[in-house]
C-alpha cells in the first residue's frame, strides 16, 4: 500500500512541477520584455538583445517536450502500478486459497 501512496505523491509532484513551469513559459512568450533575466556569463547574450522572431516559435516545441516527458513518465508509472496491483491481488487470492485447502 505504501508503494501506491508513494506513487501518488510522485505523480502529484510531477503534475505540480508541470504546473509551475507553465506560468514562466507564459511570461516569457507573452511579453518580449525579458529584462528581469539575470545577466548571463561570457558569450551568452540576454534574450532581449535577440530579434523577437527567435524567441516565439520555440514555446510550442518546449511545451510539447515537457508535456511529453510528464505524460510518458505518468503513463509508465500508472502501467507499472496496475501490473504490480494485479500481481499482488493474484498473490493474495492464491495464498488465501492455499490456506483454505489446508496446504501451504
Amino acid at each position, binding site marked *: 500500500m505504501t508503494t501506491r501512496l508513494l506513487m501518488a505523491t510522485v505523480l502529484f509532484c510531477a503534475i505540480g512541477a508541470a504546473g*509551475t513551469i507553465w506560468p514562466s513559459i507564459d511570461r516569457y512568450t507573452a511579453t518580449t520584455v525579458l529584462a528581469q533575466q539575470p545577466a548571463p*556569463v561570457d558569450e551568452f547574450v540576454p534574450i532581449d538583445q535577440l530579434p523577437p522572431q527567435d524567441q516565439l516559435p520555440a514555446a510550442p516545441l*518546449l511545451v510539447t517536450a515537457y508535456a511529453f516527458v510528464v505524460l510518458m513518465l505518468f503513463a509508465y508509472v500508472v502501467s507499472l502500478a496496475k501490473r504490480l496491483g494485479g500481481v499482488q491481488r493474484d498473490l493474495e487470492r492464491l495464498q488465501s486459497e492455499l490456506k483454505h485447502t489446508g496446504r501451504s
Partner: protein
Amino acid sequence: MPKWFVPLAVVCAVMFAVSPVLIANAPYESTMGLVQKIFYVHLPSAWVFLLGAIVCGIASARFLFKGDPRQDRLAWAAAELVVVFGIITLVTGPLWARKAWGVWWQWDVRLTSSLMGWMVSVAYLLLRQFGGPGSEKLAAGLALFGMANVPFIYISVNYWRTIHPTTSVVPTLPTSFGLPLWFSAIAFLLLFVLLLRMRVRLEEQRATLDTLYLSADA
C-alpha cells in the same frame, strides 16, 4: 520494498518539484533561446537511457554465464526503462532540433545510434513478451549482442558528417546552466533507480506467484 525506497522516493519527488523552478530561472542561451531549455530533460533522459542499456547488458551477461535469475529480472526491468527513457530522448531531441537545426531529424551519429539502441531494446521486450518459454536466455544473448554492436553502429554512422553538439560542451557550461542540468540529471537518476526497483519488484512477485501456482498444482 527495501528501506531506502521511501526516503529516496520523497527526495526524488521534491527534486522533480524544484527542478522546473531552477530550469525556468536559468538564463537563455544566446543562439538557441527558449528552446534550449529542452536540454534540461533531453540530456538527463539520454544519460539514463544509456545507463539503463549498460545495466541491462551487464545483467544479461551475468545471467547468461552465471544463471542467476535475479540478474535476469534486473535485465528485463532495465530494458523496459531503456524503452521508456529512450522514447523521451527520441521525442524531445527532434523537438529541440526543429528549432536549433531547422530539421526534425538528422542521420547524425548520436541520433542514429540512439535509435538503433532503442530498437534493440524494443526487440528485447518483444522477445520477452512473445518468445514463450525459454526466451530469457535468448533475450540475454540479444542484449549482449546489442552491447557489442554499439561501437560498430557508432563508427559506421560517424562516417557521415555530424552536427550534434559534442559531449565536451557539458563540463564547460557556466554554473547558471550547469546547476539546473546536474540537478535535473540527479532527479532523473533517482527516478530511474526507483522505477527499476519497482519493476524488479514486479518480476519478483511474478516469480513468487509462479512458485505458488506450482505448489498448488503439486
